[in-house]
């Protein structure tokens, strides 16, 4: 039973950057192309994200995600290329369908933003251990109960799936058909869901007691087993990211 996190454990420079710096970068990278809505800015962030993912040795993991949204991006190009409100300069025609320069540029801008968002979130998802990210947030004031909920989701869902398999095996061993056509599968689902839900409710109840007897609700100031060491370089990196963001905002206001 594994945690459902997509984190890829690699020894890379990017993995060594602390989660909070990555969160700040995520914010800046996602927001900036909206503040300055030019193709140039979006392209720069896409390129930077690709370099970060390559340095983090996780670029291969992003390819399937981009392929998944590729169909949607193609659709945006077709629709906007033909029907964008500001279309005026014809670029080419296929059969009787005419594509316009303005529409295609608009589609390119949307596509770059979408890809940028995907790549940015991929950095944090693939190179930050969720447990460390949550712990960093709890250290900075995220309520521990919320942190627990985020944390437990990663563990509890695989646990429920394991329990579901056990129940399914138990039902199979008593002669229930679980494989076959859709109707058979649907019938098999009903005897599974009852025990699964009941089991989960009972476990949740007992687990909440277990948390209580280990002082989860205690008002004392919590401490942490893992030390949070933020090297000076990370502080400079954060400063650089924030300065870039300020520059982008100023650019937008001034120009």
């Amino acid at each position: 039973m594994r945690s459902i996190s997509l984190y890829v454990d690699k020894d890379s420079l990017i993995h060594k950057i602390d989660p909070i710096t990555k969160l700040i970068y995520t914010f800046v990278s996602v927001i900036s192309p909206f503040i300055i809505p030019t193709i140039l800015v979006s392209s720069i962030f896409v390129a930077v994200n690709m370099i970060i993912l390559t340095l983090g040795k996780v670029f291969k993991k992003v390819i399937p995600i981009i392929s998944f949204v590729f169909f949607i991006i193609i659709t945006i190009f077709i629709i906007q290329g033909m029907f964008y409100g500001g279309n005026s300069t014809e670029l080419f025609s296929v059969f009787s369908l005419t594509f316009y320069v303005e529409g295609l540029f608009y589609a390119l801008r949307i596509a770059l933003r979408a890809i940028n968002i995907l790549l940015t979130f991929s950095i944090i998802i693939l190179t930050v251990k969720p447990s460390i990210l949550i712990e960093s947030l709890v250290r900075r004031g995220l309520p521990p109960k919320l942190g627990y909920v985020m944390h437990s989701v990663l563990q509890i869902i695989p646990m429920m799936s394991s329990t579901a398999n056990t129940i399914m095996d138990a039902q199979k061993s008593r002669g229930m058909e679980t494989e076959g056509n859709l109707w058979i599968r649907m019938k098999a689902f009903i005897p599974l869901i009852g025990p699964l839900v009941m089991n989960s409710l009972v476990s949740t109840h007992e687990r909440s007691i277990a948390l209580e007897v280990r002082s989860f609700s205690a008002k004392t100031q919590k401490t942490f087993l893992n030390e949070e060491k933020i090297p000076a370089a990370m502080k400079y990196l954060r400063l650089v990211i924030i300065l870039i963001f300020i520059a982008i905002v100023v650019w937008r206001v001034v120009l």
Partner: protein
Amino acid sequence: MSKVIIKNLSYQYPLGDENALEDISLKINKGDFLGIVGPNKAGKSTLCKSLVGLVPHFYNGDFSGEILIDDLNTKNHSISQISLKVGLVFQNPFNQISGAKLTVYDEVAFGLENIGLPREKMIERIDYYLKLMDIYDQRASNPFEISGGQMQRLAIASIMAREPDVFVLDEPTSQLDPQGSKEVFNAIHKLSQKDLTVIIVSQKMERLAKYTDNILLLNQGRVIDYDKKEKIFARDDLEELGVRPPIYTEIARKMNLKNDKSYYPINRKKLTDLVVKKYGQNFSK
């Protein structure tokens, strides 16, 4: 090390037809190693839950009487406050795993982080208790991926590491093999030597006979007897009350072998001594 005083404790679960605990009064001295025995529905688990304040704070229902852990009245304090003095290990170790930590090592740390223990002390305690419970080798494993027996050891280590004054264990060795069970009892006994009051529910009578000082015999929520283990296991009505005596006591009863105080022996050595005394040295050979 704390003294536990229970005065006229009665409790009925919200949907219960009758009292799970009925007018229980007893005193457990500091440093005692108490065993609780009784058949199903005797109130053993409910009594354990009462000691840490889960009854009445977590479970509602009709609660009367009081439990004092030294001067701390469980009725007037939160579970978090009580749990600093009283540690409870449940029957089912699976549900004792917090679900918030990804390794065995971090799982033990969970209860220590919550009470604000400094990091250095935390590491010291985690190392000590994982080694004591013989699961240090599993420290990097996911708590949900270890065996039932290891999970039980982890659950015990997680509570032990908080170093409570009173340590309550509800069937802590139910998923362990005889060797594992022996090791866990040994570890608990080792801890009980240094200022710890231990209250343990177990069906493993031979272990209780070996390690405990006193036995509390419960039936249908009532205290039937509370005395020295030799006296409890010497009762003729023990099986009628749903409790199997230690095997050595059963053998002694069948052979009608009693010691000077008219008690049946409760362990192998005492039984052997009596047999030798009655039948001579050749019998033991």
